């Protein structure tokens, strides 16, 4: 399984990878991107099975990344892990094709339960 992690914080990318490994994805191949533009290019290059993205990023933000991805016909399971998470943003994420939004700070259980709920299998 290939998982693309998009976040402008290297520390947060590493924490998300660590959480996913602990959630059972220890054998996954992780691909990292520091903004939405890089993430879009890597999504096209690597065809990941799951995309986990921050919302606020420089250059192309997470929402715009998602919109461009869906506009290109890519229906990869996509979720936000973000410090945002207001009701309006959750609605906006859903209406643009995101499967989940995990608000920071998260627990390992939140991560595992959310991925199970959207049918992401180990």
């Amino acid at each position, binding site marked *: 399984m290939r998982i693309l992690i998009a976040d402008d*914080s290297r520390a947060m990318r590493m*924490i998300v990878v660590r959480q996913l490994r602990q959630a059972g994805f220890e054998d996954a191949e992780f691909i990292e991107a520091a903004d939405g533009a890089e993430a879009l290019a890597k999504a096209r290059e690597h065809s990941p099975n799951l995309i986990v993205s921050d919302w606020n990023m420089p250059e192309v933000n997470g929402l715009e990344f998602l919109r461009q991805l869906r506009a290109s016909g890519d229906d990869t399971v996509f979720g936000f892990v973000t410090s945002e998470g207001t009701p309006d943003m959750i609605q906006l994420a859903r209406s643009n094709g995101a499967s989940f939004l995990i608000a920071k700070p998260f627990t390992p259980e939140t991560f595992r339960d959310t991925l199970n709920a959207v049918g992401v299998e180990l």
Partner: protein
Amino acid sequence: MSDLLDWSMSVVEGVQALEEGIFKVFDGVPRMIDEKAPLNLPGAWVSLIGGRLALQFGLIAEYATLEQLALRFTGFDLVNEIDVTDAITEVANIVGGVAKRSMISHDPLLTSGLPIFLFGRLVVPSQVDQALIEVPSSAGNVYFATLVQKDA
């Protein structure tokens, strides 16, 4: 001032929420203190602007303290300057995000900007209200400062 007090209480919630997840970086109890913010200290700042609120929110501390927080946050054995700025802006962003979610019913238009890290002294206008939260820590005292332009 009521909005500032509500915001500060939401920041305390944010610090406590951080401790309940995987990001255990503080080991003290946050408390609001009636002092001016030590704006000469380095740290990360986030702007939040809404219909009722317009504020600057910062996590500041002595650099050695920020290094310790970054080590705890990342789990790295060593951190360089880039790691510290990255980790501390992320911690400020997370605490600010929790506070924002708590305040969104008061101010549905509240929007946060990208956080920035400042090494130098923050220059602020004289006409600002301040709120300060101190989090005592074995790594040193950490401060969450909020600056709000006073009403004209």
